[in-house]
């Protein structure tokens, strides 16, 4: 189902595999892990490793307010942009475009962007 080279159209999961305020970590080859979130019925994706320490954000908590809270020291990011919101996080995450096609969720790994 997943062509390893298909970085622009990388399969994540079925649309219904995630409930709201849930997320899933993916480990694409040759790049650090990414986390895909579902909030308010929409999907978002960012790098999975916190910029403050070596924490996996997929083990944190995401809220209706589009904020992911890191499980280690409670720093937060905006999942829509990757922007760091609360201390101790200061450096942004990269965020990635996500599309839903025919009930399947895909992330474009080639278009990861950190906010300016």
């Amino acid at each position, binding site marked *: 189902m997943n062509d390893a080279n298909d970085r622009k159209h990388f399969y994540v999961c079925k649309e219904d595999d995630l409930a709201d305020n849930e997320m899933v970590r993916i480990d694409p080859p040759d790049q650090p892990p990414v986390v895909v979130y579902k909030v308010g019925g929409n999907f978002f994706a960012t790098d999975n490793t916190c910029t*403050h320490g070596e924490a996996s954000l997929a083990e944190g908590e995401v809220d209706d307010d589009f*904020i992911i809270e890191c499980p280690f020291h409670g720093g937060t990011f905006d999942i829509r942009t990757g922007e760091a*919101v*609360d*201390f*101790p996080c*200061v*450096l942004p995450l990269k965020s990635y475009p996500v599309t839903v096609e025919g009930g399947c969720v895909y992330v474009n790994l080639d278009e990861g962007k950190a906010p300016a």
Partner: protein
Amino acid sequence: MPTIKIEGTGEQFEQTESQDCILRAGLTAGYGLAYECNSGGCGTCKFQLIEGEIEEPWPTAPALSARDIKKGRKLACQCKAKTDLVIKMRTDPEYAPINLPARFEATLSSRRDVTSDIVEFCFQAPDSADAKFLPGQYAMLTFPDGRGPRAYSMSNLPNGDGVWEFWIRRKPGGEVSGALFDELRVGGRIVVDGPYGHAYLRAESERDILCIAGGSGISPMLSIARGVLMDPDMEGRQVHFYFGGRTPDDLCGLDELKVLPGFQERVHYHPAISMPEESPEWTGDTGFIHEIVENQLGNELSRFECYLAGPPPMVQATTKMLQLQGNVPTGQIHYDPFY
């Protein structure tokens, strides 16, 4: 004496009479409570109070956002236990102190003007007890009458003579730095609590060293550079030392570096100023120090062990540059923002 339990870890410790916060009580007991600045600025020491009562003298510390306050998050470096507590907080062996912090009253043995607003203060520990710390670490200083604490980084090396040396910049209108400058004379007393901090010299690393200091960030960078040149095990390492001030009057540290053995061959000192309009006679580099480092070392950056200290915006801009433009892995970047 309140006992503090960390939920779900089996870790527990006491906060003694003389201890002024939960964080330093836990670190002094040897536990790896997460922290960086000890000063209410970074937010790494956030915790959730599950049971018991605390004293929170600075509930508006800058590290707490409106969201933290709404969720009941507190800072362990700014809260003291009033009763036994159960708290939820991250602990990790990487935060556990290598040298256990200690609290003692020290005597000012000398002071010397370095620039128009930086003074070197040397304190003597009682009975010349070993000054045990790692180059790059800091201590909390408090006046015996309770003013403080504030974090200050040691500029010297650990020693067996009990000497703790600090380069301190007077902050205009600053309470504690102002009092140190105006009131403390040789023979005066200060409470030292330390060492703390993770931006210490990694002597085991084979990489060359990049020190980047802004303003009073010179203090720990001097200690790092001294540590590299005085450690026979680090003989092969070169030190690239970048120091940014506002004007040439702020630049210092070169005299102290020059007297180190191997300075000529191993230290590359790059001063720069950010306000050239004030000093038309200056012919050296101008601009923000992180931009100068990027221009000069650009694609080489990932081969360095990087040490940074100075004002938070400078440390943040430099860390961002090292990670995003320089592709330096996080584990090679060691920083202390001076909140």
